[in-house]
């Protein structure tokens, strides 16, 4: 068996990151560095109104007073924030009117990623707001959505077309004072998606955005804002791949979700950014603030994430359950290999009565990676009859990796029922032997067992994503047999 192991290790060591390529398109990059002038320049280039510039400057001034957080179980090399260019936009000539007008190079990139726009339009019925670097290039199915009154566009467009909505909700869930990276994002965010679902509307299709970091050494500061009005429903997908780079790239996004009475939002992520090579060189830093506000009664927010990429992940999609009877869910699979580090989890803040939350987190660590779950369940004094169930399992592949669990439970109400369970284990030799006996190679057996282990979460993903996620799991873990 050990010979087998070595073979796999060598094979994977030789395998290259599948999505590592760069596209040569003219990009409009502003000089490196961060200052009030840079922020004014970004704001000016995007033609933003005065209030937004003020918002950015306020956030920037606050950011200057903050220090990089160091409480996570991560080893983050110092980041020089002056050595990053804060704005990169593919050069547009009057903007594409149809698919033919889109830069063919760009289309090729998407094709390589396996998301041909036309095919997706035709076959999967998905509306794709493809974000390449920072400016939305092409939005599909927009007209169809418009008919129902659904707004799905880039956030810069939303600032121009629907300023009242953006102004009302921007920063209402994640304030610029929230944390270091949230302040940075609020100051320099360049683009992202905006979704508004009007009252009583069920969004007929899955909304999807593909993020891709393209221009070298440009941080990407996405800002996503989703507002679901009373009795509405939307399922939103976010998938990420990034080309191969040597220097680490910073990604500090904010996702804000505002859920009104009886509305439901489902937010799914498959994150597969470049994790660095087998020696831990390069890779994306993924420092993301994601939070949903279940303001309305009986509202529901569900986070599902499959995290396989990034050199360092710092991410805690959270739910503030303010409305009575609201429901928060968090399903996560986090895979780390080689020198990857992940500190991820969720926060469930129960403020309303009869609120419920479920947390299912599955960590898989291999190679020399460190994988941590960090979560908070807080039950406020006035939140009666709260129910929470958390389960955090870790699977270790190899004896040089680490799996950690840091759950926090702050209970201030006697009617709450809160449970937390966690286990850590490795794939047993018996299981592998059983598969071997039946003619399944050790590597396939690992894939089989890992997929079974993560099934509970993968099942929560929309169909298209589930297939991709399953493949990703296999690719990420190839050769990490422990």
């Amino acid at each position, binding site marked *: 068996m050990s010979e087998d192991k070595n073979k796999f290790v060598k094979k994977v060591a030789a395998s290259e990151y599948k999505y590592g390529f760069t596209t040569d398109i003219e990009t409009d990059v502003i000089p490196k560095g961060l200052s009030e002038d840079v922020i004014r320049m970004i704001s000016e280039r995007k033609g933003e109104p005065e209030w937004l510039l003020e918002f950015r400057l306020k956030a920037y001034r606050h950011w200057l007073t903050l220090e990089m957080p160091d409480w996570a179980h991560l080893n983050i090399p110092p980041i020089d924030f002056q050595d990053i260019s804060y704005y990169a936009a593919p050069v547009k000539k009057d903007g594409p009117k149809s698919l033919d007008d889109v830069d063919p190079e760009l289309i090729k990139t998407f094709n390589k990623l396996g998301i041909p726009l036309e095919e997706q339009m035709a076959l999967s019925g998905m509306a794709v707001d493809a974000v390449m670097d920072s400016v939305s290039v092409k939005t599909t199915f927009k007209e169809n959505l418009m008919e129902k009154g659904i707004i799905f566009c880039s956030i810069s467009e939303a600032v121009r077309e629907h300023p009242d909505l953006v102004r009302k909700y921007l920063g209402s869930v994640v304030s610029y004072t929230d944390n270091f990276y949230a302040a940075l994002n609020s100051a320099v965010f360049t683009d992202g998606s905006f979704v508004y679902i009007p009252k009583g509307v069920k969004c007929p299709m899955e909304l999807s955005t593909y993020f891709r970091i393209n221009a070298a050494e440009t941080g990407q500061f996405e800002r996503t804002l989703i507002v679901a009005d009373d009795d509405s429903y939307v399922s939103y997908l976010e998938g990420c791949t990034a080309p191969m780079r040597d220097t680490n790239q910073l990604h500090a996004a904010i996702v804000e979700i505002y859920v009104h009475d009886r509305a439901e939002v489902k937010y799914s992520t498959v994150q597969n950014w470049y994790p660095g090579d087998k020696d831990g060189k390069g890779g994306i830093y993924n420092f993301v603030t994601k939070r949903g506000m279940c303001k309305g009664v009986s509202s529901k927010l569900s986070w599902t994430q499959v995290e396989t990429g990034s050199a360092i992940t710092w991410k805690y999609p959270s739910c503030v359950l303010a409305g009575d009877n609201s429901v928060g869910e968090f399903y996560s699979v986090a895979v780390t290999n080689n020198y990857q580090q992940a500190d991820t989890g969720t926060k469930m803040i129960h403020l309303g009565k009869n609120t419920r939350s479920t947390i299912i987190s599955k960590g898989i660590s291999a190679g020399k990676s460190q994988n941590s779950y960090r979560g908070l369940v807080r039950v406020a004094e006035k939140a009666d009859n709260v129910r929470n169930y958390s389960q955090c399992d870790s699977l270790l592949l*190899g004896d040089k990796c680490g799996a950690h669990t840091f759950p*926090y*439970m702050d*209970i201030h109400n*006697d*009617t*709450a029922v809160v449970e937390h369970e966690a286990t*850590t*284990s490795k794939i047993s030799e018996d299981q592998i032997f059983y598969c071997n006996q039946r003619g399944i190679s050790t590597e396939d057996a690992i894939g089989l067992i890992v997929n079974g282990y993560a099934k509970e979460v993968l099942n929560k993903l929309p169909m298209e994503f589930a297939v991709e996620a399953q493949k990703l799991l296999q690719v990420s873990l190839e050769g990490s047999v422990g």
Partner: protein
Amino acid sequence: MSLNSEKQYIDLYQEARDLICRHSAPVINSLRDKAFADFCRIGFPGKKLEKYKYTDIKSCFAPDYGLNLNRVPMQVDPYKTFKCDVPNISTSLFFVLNDIFYVPEKKTGNMPDGVLMMSLKEAAELHPELVEKYYGKLASTENDGINAFNTAFVQDGVFLYVPDNVVLEKPIQLINIMNAKMDMMANRRILVVLGKNAQAKMLICDHAELGAKYLSTQVAEIYAGENSVFDYYELEETGSNNVRICNTYVEQSASSNVLVNGVTLTNGLTRNHVNVVLNGENAEIALNGIATVDKNQHIDNNTNIEHRYSRCTSNELFKYVLDDEAVGAFAGRVKVCQDAQKTVSQQTNKNLCLTRESHMYTQPQLEIYADDVKCSHGATVGQLDENAVFYMQQRGLSKKEAMTLLMFAFVNEVVDSIRMEPLKDRLHMLVEKRFRGELSKCSSCAKCK
């Protein structure tokens, strides 16, 4: 005020350093200045520190407490006054009054040859090389303000030494009594050294007389030699006038078996930190605790178990019952180092909140760097099962009786892990009394009549 918490002690130390040293032993004094320098550097731990997140230690030290630096002995014979022993077991009984080890007039208990059970100060004078080898080695003053403070101010404590291959049949019972006319602070130290194949049991009871306010810091260092067995029980029955801050460090050699059981029946504010290092193969630790708190009592148990070698086992079980406006906190961390393969570790924390105003914080943490391990942890916060209460009511029990029975059953799981039958029975009774609101009315105790 809180800003100056440290200052009053820094001034005091500078003024009274010679006095403190004169009433202590050279071995204990040898660490004092370094500890004081560390204390000046780090101060009392604030709430910003992750380890001390749930208890505001700084403000505990803000009031003006008296310290008995002159070591004026108390004018009572505790053997006559206090009889709060556990019935049906003959224990070797010792007392610590405030922070002074009470030297009995006649020798109590027949200790086997070589066993030392005495005042730490006396031990440091009689056996300096032995005490020096172990004193202050586990409780580092570098980055813990409480250790630094205690090491700088401590003058005496308890020393237990069990040589190789000696089995101490009779449990040792140590009663800490806080008793003073004015507000009083006590800084105690416990040092336990067990040789190879040695066995011992130690029961520590904490009492505080009514009247004045008390604050005690206690730093315990326990070394369990190869293949030794040690049981360490701590039972706190103090009052709302008492603050107890206690750090316990355990280092276990190969194949040793240690049980640490902390019971908090009544208290004021309590913060217990237990740090266990499994420093040899096949070592086993059971770390259990019960807290039954009400009114505005505060209990914070913070534990850390480090598995350094393979094939070690750790079991952790903490149960809390919180009533009225009580605050409970539990933070348990289990770290499994890279070489600690075949580790088995289980951690459970279950809590009952009986009122809306009671608060519970729990933080069960796992940090695992080895792959061939079986580790699990679980935590729950909830209430009594309504169906169970209803079932009992149907059968003619009053609601109160039904709830008492259920709570009793809830904490019994921990009591049952005690490896001393008479103490188990005694605790069954004490816990039940506690839930019936009749605690500390032990029939045989003169103190609480």
